[in-house]
């Protein structure tokens, strides 16, 4: 340690030299031209690595060839100090320090050169920003077109699937009406059941369309008052008489399109009403600070541990005899994922089913 310290202090040793001002016939003008120019070069050379370092740390952690940037920064910085020392020498002849800075600069510059040579072919192979942008635009364009295709497809599919279904429904119910009371009750019952199936199929098509459009909304996003959204969804449903519903007023607003929130609440509520087997149903909508998520909680039949992932899949349904399309939770999950959020289900210690959902990242 003492040795290194001794060596460093020797660098500042001026013995054996005279300040540059006294070597030769300096005019003030020529001397200061050297000094000012050297200082300007020094400042410029220092500002480059400072700017590069800031850029590296703050903005572009993904920059390729990061080590080269550090080496290049060192190289430029040491070039700068060479010029600074040149200016100092006019008053303090620190030629030993000058030699040291020049050796450091030489090593750093050759290091940079040697490091650069193998990288050059790789750097040339990197696509330019312009090319990357073109690629991105192309992809965006294709995505947009495929979205439009999908929309046109779902629209036509819905019409072409529903038209024959309606024909069946109409013809069956007309036949029953036409024959009237003389119809065998068993046949009448079969017709009614067929019409019910037609209605189910129709509902399934409707829900599939909602699912297909789930992540898309033509409506702009806004700051949605969740309590208001929950109440408005409730107003669209027939609430069973025995149900008690409570909606927390002080929920954080969500940035999403109002139609999407409505879809989420409609599907949660429909499920809560459908899968309740208690004498007095109960439904609570609120915000859980602990989970940083909204929740819809009810005292329904519950979701067993092994079903808690599965029920969010398309066409998957919990073990139940209740009618349903198996699309409600899948629609919710699709919407929630499309805004970067999440949805999951837990059972509370009191045995209530609690669905939680976030409508943003985080």
């Amino acid at each position, binding site marked *: 340690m003492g040795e290194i310290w001794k060596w460093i202090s020797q660098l500042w040793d001026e013995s054996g030299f005279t300040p540059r001002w006294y070597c030769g016939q300096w005019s003030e003008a020529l001397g200061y031209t050297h000094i000012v120019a050297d200082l300007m070069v020094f400042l410029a050379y220092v500002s480059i690595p400072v700017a590069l370092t800031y850029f590296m740390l703050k903005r572009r952690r993904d920059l390729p060839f990061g080590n080269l940037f550090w080496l290049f920064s060192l190289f430029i910085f040491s070039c700068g100090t060479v010029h600074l020392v040149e200016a100092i020498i006019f008053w303090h002849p620190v030629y030993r320090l000058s030699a040291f800075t020049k050796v450091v600069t030489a090593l750093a510059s050759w290091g940079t050169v040697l490091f650069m040579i193998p990288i050059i072919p790789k750097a040339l192979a990197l696509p330019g920003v312009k090319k990357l942008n073109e690629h991105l635009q192309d992809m965006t364009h294709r995505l947009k077109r495929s979205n439009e295709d999908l929309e046109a497809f779902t*629209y036509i599919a*819905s*019409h072409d699937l*529903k*038209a024959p*279904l*309606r*024909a069946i*429904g*109409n*013809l069956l*119910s*007309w036949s029953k*009406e036409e024959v009237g009371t003389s119809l065998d009750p068993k046949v009448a019952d079969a017709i009614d059941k067929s*019409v019910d199936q*037609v*209605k189910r199929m*129709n509902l399934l098509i*409707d829900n599939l369309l909602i699912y297909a459009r789930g992540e898309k909304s033509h409506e702009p996003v806004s700051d949605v008052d969740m309590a208001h959204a929950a109440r408005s969804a409730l107003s669209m449903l027939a609430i069973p008489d025995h149900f008690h519903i409570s909606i927390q007023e002080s929920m954080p607003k969500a940035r999403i399109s109002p139609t999407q929130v409505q879809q989420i609440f409609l599907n949660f509520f429909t499920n809560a009403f459908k899968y309740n087997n208690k004498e007095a149903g109960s439904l609570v909508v609120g915000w859980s600070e602990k989970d940083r998520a909204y929740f819809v909680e009810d005292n329904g039949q519950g979701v067993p541990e092994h079903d808690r992932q599965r029920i969010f899949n398309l066409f998957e349904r919990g073990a139940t005899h209740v009618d349903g399309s198996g699309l409600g939770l899948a629609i919710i999950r699709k919407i929630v994922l499309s805004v970067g959020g999440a949805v999951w289900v837990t059972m509370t210690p009191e045995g209530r089913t609690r669905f939680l959902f976030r409508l943003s990242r985080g």
Partner: protein
Amino acid sequence: MNRSQILLVEDNPIDKMMFERALKHVSKDVEVLHFESVQEACRYVENVGVATPRLAVLDLRLGDETGFDYLRKRNQSSRLHDVPAIILSTSDSNKDVKEAFSLGAAGYFVKPLEFKELTELIASITSYWDWSVLPGDMDS
């Protein structure tokens, strides 16, 4: 105007048959003037003179044409314009409903799945337009 005629533009034969049967349940006096294309329907109304049907019922998807095409033509022809037009379609898409009303449709109805519902729907439609006073009513 011919108060006992309803113009139906519909290319699905079963839907046409059901419409006629449901209408027959409601009233024996109303006649259905059926066309499969917008063009034929428009040509008929343009050339029939004063005895125009009292109501036009339009399907939306009609092969290459749409019920919207009828509504657009209706906005450019005074004769077509005197006949109120309503949509009876499979589609319940908000986009279609909005477009229909913006083009001047007098109503929008989704085709029901059951014959009974269809009969009820047609009963209310015919009774509404029975009570309505239409252009040309007071001249005769």
